[in-house]
Structure formats: structure tokens, C-alpha cells
């Protein structure tokens, strides 16, 4: 059978160019985050919270959605999702530097508290899991208006134990709403490991109880993630309702720049993470299939570095909001 001879990405209907584009976003996500750590260590920004280890999960998921048509209520690690949704590196950096022109909050919020109105990326808060209900409400309202949208929402495996997770999946299930619930399971909630966090050990297993598919996927496998989300997105659009997808990821860095994971993870455990680094795995696949070679890669890295440099310099050169802006936008201003 011919299909068997097809490469995995081809079987999914992805061209080499498309796959390279996905990898480009993964790498951009990684390079921006690495820069943020440098800036934080250098005292230029106070805080970083990192997607490292989740790039395949985020990019694979986001590519199943439609820019400026679908809606997003992401969580703080979703840098990659934001980039695919259309947020520019400059905009990301404006947020990291908390500048006045940061489109997410004008510097009012911490970095990684996303938001971008023109791109349907809803403003996020710190209290975890609240955004799942917002995605359900967005889907409910879109259904009333007869609009063709699908809502992406996400949280971590620890956050999936919050009451709002239960209420959101139940509501979406009752009304068969077009929502895809993603849980990025990186095995830790700050220092609390999976076995002290998720009874039974599987978030995906909870989907069935809400009458929706509960799918577990290797979050370091870009194509597997893309396939799962494509299926869930189609399902949502065709009125069959929501899906829950648990992407098994790794958390390569500490929880955030305020954390030191060496206090609760062994050196061996930390070292072992490299083997599951989605960047390395995806890169290998691209080389295998001749989609990437050293020349192309050199050019790609240079291009991304330039973009990160540009975004950093641009953002740093921008001004903070005036102090009195602290009083603005409490209520509608006329």
C-alpha cells in the first residue's frame, strides 16, 4: 500500500515546507525563551516562566487552529501558541519588558500573561484554570451567533485539579461546544510531582466522564500532537463537541526564574530530560527526511537570532507607561 511508503508528515497532509515552518516556530519559541533567561539573569527583566520542553506540544496544537478566526485562552507557558496565533516577537518582548505599548496589558501584568485583541487571544490572569471557563463561554456565545469558531484553552496537569476544570469540561460536554481542552502534563506543579497531584495519574482518563474523548499524546512528538489536535478541531467544527487532550511534556527548566528545581529533582532526573527535548527530536526528523540540512539550519538560526535581537532592542527602547496609567481602565472611560 502506498500510504505505508509515505513519511509521517505526508500521511498527515503536511508538506515539508509546512513542517519546516512548524519547526521554525518551535525554534523561535526556544530562542526567545533562552533570551528571556539571559535578560532575567542580567537583571533587565524580573521574571521568566518557560515553555522549554513543551514547544512541540504548543506548536503542534496551535497549527490545528485558524489564525484570527479561532479563539485562544492560553496559559502562561503558551509562548509558542501565541506566536502561531500571530503575536510578534516584538510584542512578546514588550510584555517581557513590561513596556507601555505591550499589547497584552500595557505593562500592567507580569510577563506571559498573554492577551491580544485583534488576534482573539484573550487576556489571562495568574489564578490557574479560570480561562477554561472563558473558552467555554466564548464557544457558547459563538454558537448563539452561528459563528464558525473553535476555542483553544490550556492549563497544566496540576491546574487541571482545580474545580473550574471540572465545571468547564462538564458544561462544554453538556452543550457539545466547540472547545479543545489541552493539558500540558510536564509531571510537576512547581515542586509537586504527578503522583501527589493527579489521582490515577492520567488527566486524559477524565475525558470519558464528561462524554468526550480523552486523548493522551506524546507532547514531545510534533506530528502526533498535530494529528490529535487536527482530529479534535474537526470534531469541534462538525458539532460533535469538545475534546480533552493531555500532552505528555517535559519541563526542562525550573518552574520559573523564582524556582530552583534542584531542591526537589535529582541531577539524574534533570539530566534525563535532554533525551526528550522536542527541539532535538524534531530536528532529527527534519534531517532524516532531508527537510533540513546544515546550510538551511545555519540560515534559519541566523534569521531567528536577528528577529530575537530586533525584538529585544525594540522592546527595551520603548518607554514604560506613565505612573498615572495605574489609574486608567478601571471602568469604561468616556
Amino acid at each position, binding site marked *: 500500500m502506498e500510504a505505508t511508503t509515505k513519511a509521517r508528515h505526508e500521511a498527515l497532509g503536511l508538506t515539508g515546507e509546512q513542517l519546516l515552518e512548524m519547526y521554525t516556530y518551535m525554534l523561535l519559541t526556544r530562542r526567545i525563551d533562552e533570551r528571556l533567561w539571559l535578560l532575567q539573569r542580567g537583571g533587565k527583566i524580573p521574571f521568566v516562566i518557560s515553555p522549554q520542553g513543551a514547544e512541540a506540544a504548543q506548536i503542534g496544537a496551535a497549527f490545528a487552529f485558524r489564525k484570527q478566526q479561532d479563539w485562544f485562552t492560553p496559559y502562561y507557558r503558551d509562548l509558542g501558541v501565541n506566536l502561531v496565533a500571530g503575536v510578534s516577537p516584538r510584542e512578546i518582548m514588550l510584555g517581557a519588558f513590561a513596556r507601555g505599548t505591550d499589547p497584552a496589558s500595557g505593562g*500592567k501584568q507580569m510577563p506571559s500573561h498573554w492577551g491580544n*485583541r485583534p488576534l482573539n487571544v484573550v*487576556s489571562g*490572569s495568574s489564578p490557574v484554570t*479560570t480561562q477554561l*471557563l472563558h473558552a467555554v*463561554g466564548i464557544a457558547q456565545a459563538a454558537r448563539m*451567533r452561528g459563528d464558525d469558531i473553535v476555542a483553544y484553552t490550556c492549563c497544566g496537569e496540576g491546574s487541571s485539579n482545580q474545580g*473550574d476544570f471540572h465545571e468547564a469540561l462538564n458544561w462544554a460536554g453538556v452543550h457539545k461546544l466547540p472547545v479543545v481542552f489541552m493539558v500540558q502534563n510536564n509531571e510537576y506543579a512547581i515542586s509537586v510531582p504527578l503522583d501527589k497531584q493527579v489521582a490515577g495519574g492520567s488527566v486524559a482518563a477524565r475525558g470519558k466522564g464528561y462524554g468526550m474523548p480523552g486523548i493522551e499524546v506524546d507532547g514531545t512528538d510534533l506530528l502526533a500532537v498535530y494529528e490529535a489536535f487536527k482530529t479534535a478541531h474537526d470534531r469541534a467544527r462538525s458539532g460533535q463537541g469538545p475534546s480533552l487532550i493531555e500532552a505528555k511534556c517535559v519541563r526542562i527548566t525550573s518552574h520559573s526564574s523564582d524556582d530552583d528545581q534542584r531542591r526537589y529533582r535529582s541531577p539524574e532526573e534533570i539530566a534525563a530530560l535532554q533525551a526528550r527535548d522536542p527541539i532535538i527530536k524534531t530536528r532529527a526528523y527534519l534531517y532524516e527526511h532531508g527537510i533540513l540540512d546544515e546550510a538551511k539550519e545555519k540560515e534559519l538560526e541566523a534569521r531567528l537570532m536577528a528577529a530575537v535581537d530586533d525584538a529585544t532592542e525594540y522592546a527595551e527602547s520603548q518607554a514604560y507607561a506613565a505612573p498615572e496609567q495605574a489609574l486608567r481602565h478601571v471602568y469604561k472611560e468616556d
Partner: protein
Amino acid sequence: MAVLNLVEAVRETLRAEMRRDRDVWVVGEDVGKKGGVFGATLGLFDEFGAERVQDSPLTESAIVGVGIGAALYGTKPVCEIQFADFIFPAFNQIISEAAKMRYRSNGTWTVPMVIRAPFGGGVHGGLYHSQSVEQYFTNTAGLKVVVPSTPYDAKGLLAAAIRDPDPVLFFEHKGLYRAIKGEVPETDYVIPIGKADVKRDGSDITVITYGKTVHFCLEAANQLAKEGYEALVLDLRSLLPLDHEAIVAAAKKTGKVLIVHEAGKTHGIGSEVSAIIAEECLFDLDAPVQRLCGPDVPAMPYAGPMEKFFMLSPEKCLEAMRTLAKY
């Protein structure tokens, strides 16, 4: 001009606003076929259908959280919390999300929505069907908190709340739903949120109150008039924002102020009203600023005698007003 009670005024306003704007919809527990446990949505299910008059699962955090999402998308949800006592599971969504959305997004994302809830006691409801919860929300900028005391105000304020660009908590005193009737124009009108209303003018003492106790104080004021003292009764109507001007003007006019509310005294709404007066017109006062409120206990007891002991009444108001008048 129809004569309606307060729950009818709420229902007719919901109907009118839903006819006026296709994006307005109602969601909550038992709001559909049953028409709500107090009948506030009776008949709306038949007119607007199951989607716009939506029975929700038994999940308050979701009622509000889904409402927020629907408001972000551009519709105008009117969320009903079956009893104000059951709003606490939704507290995080209200305080962390609805109240802060505009501010945290620097004005780019907003949640125009209304959260309606019946509150208040004296209805044999016990601890959890009697509470006044307004003071849990009034310290949160980004929210508006409204309490109507008459059918006329209920219509004008609820219409304003539904058309408001920001989240509004709309608390209706259960004890007024059927007790109070009044003329309500069929014509469209709104009462601006943030304006108090002088329900009775007077020159001897000033009584500042809201909700059911407005009627206790008015009744007491008529009695007090027979005793030769004229009380000014100010109905706050909006607890956030408060109408500073009206409060200060009312206080200055008589120099003797009594603040009355059913909710507990300590750290209650009266505290801020008193503080405003102590800050802005202290030297116009001829008597200490008094507060007559519910007792500082966790909530209202169920058994008749204890409930009566907890509740204010025209008699209790009259006594406090008389004492202040004679001060």
C-alpha cells in the same frame, strides 16, 4: 403605567431588554421551564427559547466564568445566582476575572455582564438563604454593585446594568419581591448607576440606607413626623460607586446621620458611608454618626424568634431615629 411588584419589574425589564437586543441572554439554575425559584424569569423560556434562557448545570463558578467568556465574545449575559448565599463558589471568577479584565488588558478586553442574585432575610431562610453579601464586593474596583428598593428603581437600574459596559452585580431583596408594589412605566428608561435617591426629604435627621430597610425607615419617618421630627431618607441604590455628593449633601443638611442596613455592622457598607462623612463634613455634624445594622454574627438564624431578633424593623428604626432626633 402598570402597577408591578419588584420581581415583576425585574422580569418585565429582562423581557424588554431581550427584545431590544438579541445579544442579551439569561443563564442560571432553573431559569428555564421553572422560571426561576422566585419567578424572575417566568415566561421568558417560552418567548426566547432554551438557548437565550438557559438552564445551567449546578455550578456557580461556571455560570459566571461562562458568562465572562460570552461577554468577551460580545454577547450580554445576565447570570442568575439562585440565592446570593451561593455566589461564593463564583467569587474567584468575579473578583479575579470579571473585575480585573478591563484593567489588566489595558482596556482592550471587557466583560459587560450582569450578575443578578436575590439576597436578604426575614423569609425563614436560615443561615444560607438570608444573607446580605453586597459588602463582599464593594471593595473591588472594576465592579459595580446595585441594590434597588422599588419596582420603579428596579427597572431603571436593571436596564442600566444590562447596558453598562462593565460588570454589574445586581442584588434584589427577596423580602421586597412581592411585598412592594409600585407604578412602573412601560416606556423605556434607565436610572444612571451611581446616583443615590432622596426617598423622603426632611430637615431634622438624615437616614442613609438601601434595600428593604429603605421601607422600614420611610415607615418610621412617617411616625416620627407625627412626633414633630422630619427625617431625610437617602436611598443609596448604588453601593459601588457610592454617590459621595448625595451622601455629603444629605449629611450636611441635618447634621445628624443614622446609617441603616440589614447586613452586619462591622466592616459593612455603613462603615464607608460613615468614613466619607467623617472625612468630608465632620464639622457640619451635631451628633456622632450612628449605625443601625444587623448583629455581627455569621448569618441569620432560622427559628422565628431568633430571626426576628436579627432582623431590623420599622420599630427598631423609629427608636434609633427618635433617639438621634432628640440628641
